[in-house]
C-alpha cells in the first residue's frame, strides 16, 4: 500500500492528531490545523493495481467446489488463506478394541456412547448445544454426559502410550471431572435463579444489616483497643522495666566483650580516656531515643494523644524543673529522659481519664434522667443504665510520676534491652 501512494507525511501527522490532544502536548500549537489534502495523486504515473475475478478451490473442502472471488494479480498463488481456520478441538474417539477392553459401563450402552461421542464431534464439545440436541433417552443430565465423556478420555489417555509422563499427568488433570460437585454447583445456581423478588429484597436487606453490624463491631473494638492501650501502658512499663534490669545484668558480660556493637573501633586507650571523663559515645546505628525524638512508629501510635515536647516542657516547668540539665552526663540525661517520658504518660493518662470520666458522667446523666422518667424509660436508656458501656470501665489509679522516674523506658521501644545495656556500660 504505502509504496504505491505517497502521502504528505507532515500534514498527515498533524491532521491525524485530535486537536484537543495537540493542545495538551504543545502549548503554542495552533487551535485549528488547516488540513492540506494529502497528495493522493502522487502515484499518478503508476498503473492501477490489477485484480481479477478468479475461481479458487478451498482445501478445507473435500469436493473441490469452485467459487469465484477477486484476486490481486501481483499476489502469488497460495492455498486459500481461510482454510487454516478449519480447526476443531480434537475430541477423543476410541477404536472397537479400546472400547471392549476398558470403556464398558453398565449404565451406558455401546450405541448410546457412540451417539454421545458423535454429537461431541459434531458440535465440537459445545456442551450446552450437545445437551440440547441429545435425544437418546430423556433423563440424562448434562453432568451424566460430561462424566461419561471425561471418564472415557481419562482411560484413553492412560492407555495410550505417551513419551512424556508429565504431559500425560497434565492431560489427566485437565480431564478431571467431579460430578457430585458439579451437580451441587448447578443446584446452587438454580436455586439462586429461582429466587422470588421478595426473597431477593429480603436477602439484600439482611446483607446490608449484616454489614452495618460488622461495621459497628469494628468501630467498637477499635475504641476499646485504644482505651486498653492507654490504660495498660504504665503497668506494662513497670513490669518491663523491672524485668529489663534482670536481662541487662545477665547480658552484661557478653555485651561488653562484643565489638560488633561498636561501629567505630575504639582503642583501649581511648576507652580508658572516655571512662575517666564520663564520656559516652552513642553507637551510631542505634537510633537516639528521647521523648523529643520519637521514632516514627511510636509517633504514629501517639498521634491521637498529641503530647508534644512543648507540653512536656511546660508541665515540667510547672513543677519547677528546668528543661536544661546542668551536668548532662549520660546517666543524668537518661534519667532526665525518664522523667520526660513519665510526664508524657502522666499527661496521656490524665487526658484519658478526663474523657472516660466525661463519658461516665454522660451515661450517668442519661440514666439519671431516665430514672426521673421512671414510668417510660426508653430501651436505649435502659440499655445504657443496665450495661455500662465499655468506655466506663473503672479507671486505673494514676501512678505518681516519681514512681516511674528513672525506671520507666519507652514502652514501644523494641530495642529496650539494648537501651538498658547501653546504660549499663557507663
Amino acid at each position, binding site marked *: 500500500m504505502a509504496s504505491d501512494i505517497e502521502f504528505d507525511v507532515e500534514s498527515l501527522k498533524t491532521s491525524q492528531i485530535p486537536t484537543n490532544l495537540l493542545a495538551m502536548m504543545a502549548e503554542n500549537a495552533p487551535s485549528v490545523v488547516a488540513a492540506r489534502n494529502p497528495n493522493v495523486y502522487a502515484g499518478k504515473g503508476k498503473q492501477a493495481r490489477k485484480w481479477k475475478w478468479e475461481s479458487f478451490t*478451498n482445501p*478445507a*473442502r473435500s*469436493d*473441490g*467446489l*469452485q*467459487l*469465484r*472471488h*477477486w484476486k490481486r494479480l501481483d499476489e502469488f498463488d497460495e492455498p*486459500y*488463506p*481461510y*482454510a487454516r*481456520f*478449519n480447526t476443531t478441538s480434537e475430541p477423543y474417539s476410541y477404536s472397537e478394541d479400546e472400547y471392549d477392553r476398558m470403556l464398558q459401563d453398565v449404565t451406558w450402552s455401546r450405541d448410546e456412547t457412540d451417539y454421545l461421542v458423535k454429537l461431541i464431534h*459434531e*458440535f465440537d464439545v*459445545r*456442551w*450446552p*448445544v450437545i*445437551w*440440547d*440436541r441429545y435425544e437418546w433417552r430423556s433423563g440424562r443430565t*448434562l453432568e451424566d454426559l460430561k462424566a461419561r465423556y471425561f471418564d472415557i478420555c481419562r482411560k484413553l489417555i492412560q492407555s495410550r502410550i505417551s513419551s512424556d509422563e508429565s504431559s500425560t499427568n497434565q492431560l489427566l488433570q485437565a480431564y478431571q471431572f467431579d460430578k457430585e460437585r458439579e451437580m451441587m454447583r*448447578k443446584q446452587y*445456581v*438454580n436455586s439462586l*435463579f429461582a*429466587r*422470588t*423478588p421478595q426473597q*431477593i429484597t429480603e436477602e439484600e436487606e439482611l446483607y446490608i444489616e449484616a454489614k452495618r453490624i460488622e461495621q459497628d463491631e469494628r468501630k467498637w473494638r477499635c475504641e476499646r483497643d485504644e482505651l486498653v492501650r492507654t490504660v495498660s501502658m504504665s503497668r506494662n512499663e513497670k513490669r518491663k522495666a523491672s524485668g529489663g534490669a534482670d536481662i541487662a545484668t545477665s547480658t552484661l558480660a557478653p555485651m561488653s566483650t562484643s565489638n560488633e556493637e561498636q561501629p567505630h573501633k575504639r582503642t583501649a586507650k581511648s576507652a580508658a580516656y572516655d571512662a575517666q571523663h564520663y564520656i559516652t559515645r552513642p553507637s551510631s546505628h542505634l537510633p537516639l531515643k528521647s521523648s523529643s525524638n520519637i521514632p516514627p512508629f511510636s509517633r504514629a501510635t501517639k498521634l491521637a494523644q498529641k503530647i508534644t515536647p512543648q507540653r512536656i516542657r511546660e508541665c515540667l516547668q510547672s513543677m519547677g524543673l528546668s528543661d536544661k540539665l546542668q551536668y548532662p552526663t549520660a546517666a543524668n540525661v537518661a534519667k532526665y529522659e525518664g522523667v520526660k517520658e513519665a510526664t508524657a504518660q502522666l499527661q496521656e493518662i490524665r487526658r484519658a481519664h478526663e474523657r472516660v470520666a466525661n463519658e461516665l458522667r454522660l451515661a450517668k446523666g442519661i440514666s439519671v434522667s431516665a430514672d426521673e422518667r421512671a414510668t417510660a424509660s426508653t430501651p436505649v436508656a435502659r440499655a445504657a443504665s443496665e450495661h455500662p458501656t465499655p468506655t466506663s470501665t473503672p479507671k486505673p489509679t494514676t501512678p505518681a510520676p516519681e514512681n516511674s522516674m528513672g525506671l520507666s523506658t519507652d514502652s514501644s521501644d523494641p530495642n529496650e534491652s539494648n537501651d538498658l545495656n547501653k546504660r549499663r556500660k557507663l
Partner: protein
Amino acid sequence: MVIYGADEVSALVVSAGSTTLCAGYAGEDAPKVVIPTHYTHNQEKTFFGDNGPDVYRDGYQVDNTMKDSLVDDFDKFTELLEHTFTHCLRVNTEDHPLLFTEPAWNTQKHREKIAEIAFDKFNVPGFYIANDSVLSAFAAGKSTALIIDIGAESTSVTPIVDGFVLRKGVVRNNIGGTQITNNYLNSLDPTQRSNLNTNLIPHQLIESKTTVEPGKNPQFTTRSDINPSESWMNWSKSKILKDWRESTSAISENGWDHGALMQRPIKSYEFPNGFADNYQLCRFVANEILINPIPFNPLPHTPNTFEPASINCSYPKPLPELIKESIQAAETDSRHHLLSNIIIVGGVSATPGLSERIQNELYAVLSNTRVKVHSPANTVERKFASWLGGSMLGSLGTFHQLWISQDEWREFGNPIVSMRCK
C-alpha cells in the same frame, strides 16, 4: 484482507418471512430487494413484487406463498424466487451460491424442498440454509444471545449459544403485526371504528378527492368501472391498516398507566380517501396484546398446509412468560449469558417504546438485575436483522467451506442438508 475475515464470492442471500421477502448480495449492508411474499393471479397469469398485488387488475386474486413463516405454496414460491433473481436482481444464479434463512420451526421437508429448488431449478453452485435467529445474533455481533423476533404473524423466542439454536428453548406464539392491527381495530370505540371501516377504501378505487378539515366528512368519488375481488380488497385494506398502525401506534414503556397515557400526544392519520381521525388511548392498547395476549382473545393459529411447523405455537402466553420458559429450557450455565444478551428483532420491534417495555417486564418477572435488552438503533437493522446476518455470514472467508456444493447434492441427496446445516 485476511484480518477482516471477509472474502466475497458474490453469494446471494434470501430471507423470506410471512409477509416480506428480502434478497440481495452478501457483504452489502441492506437488502437490494424487499417485496411482499403475496402475489396476484388469475387463471393464466401471475404477478409478483412491486408489479404484483399493489397493482389493480380486473378479476385478479391475491394469495400468499408463505404461511406461518414457512413456504406454503412451493410452485408459486419458485416463481417468486425466479422473479426476484431475474427481474429484481438480474443475476444468473449459476454464478452465485445461495444462502437461505429459515425459522427454527422449519421442517425437514421444507428445507429439503428448498434445497431441491435451489439446485435443480436455479442450478446454484452452492447452497446453505441458516437459522434466521442465529443470523440476527450475528448481525448484532453476538454468538450467544436470546433472540425475540416479532414478525408479521408470530413472536418467537430463540436461545442461541455459540452460534447454535438450543432447540428445546424455542418457544413462540402467533401474535404478530397482523394480530396487533386486529386488536387496534377492536379497541376503537364503536363510532370511531365504523367511521374507519366505511372510509377504508384503497387508493386504486378513488377517482378524485379534495382535502377537508380533520373530523369533517371526506369529499371523494370512487371509480365505478372496476370490480375488485374480495381477496384483493382484503390485501389492499390490510395494507392501509398496517400503515395506519405503524404510523400511529406505540407501547407504554412502564406498563399500563391510564393517567400517564392520557397525557401523551394524540396522533392523527389520513386515509387514502381524505378522511382523517385522531387516536389517543387506543394506539397504546393495540400493542398490549404483544405483552399479554390473554385478555384480548387472539385469533387462532392457522397451520402451514405443506407441512405443519416442527415447533407448535404455544397457547398465547404473556411474552415475559415465554422468555422465562425459554431461559429455563436452556442449560443452567448459559442462562446468565442469554439474559444479558436479549435482542429484539423483526418488523414490529420498531414500535416505539417496545424494548424499554420488555426490559421492564423482564425485571419484574425475573428480578434479575443482569437482564439487558438490546435492540439495534436503526430500523433497517431491526427489520432486516436476519438478512443482515446472512449477508455477513455469506461473505466470510471461513464460511465458504460450509456450502453444500452441486457435487455433494448429487452424491448425497436430501440428507446432506441436515448433515451440513445444523
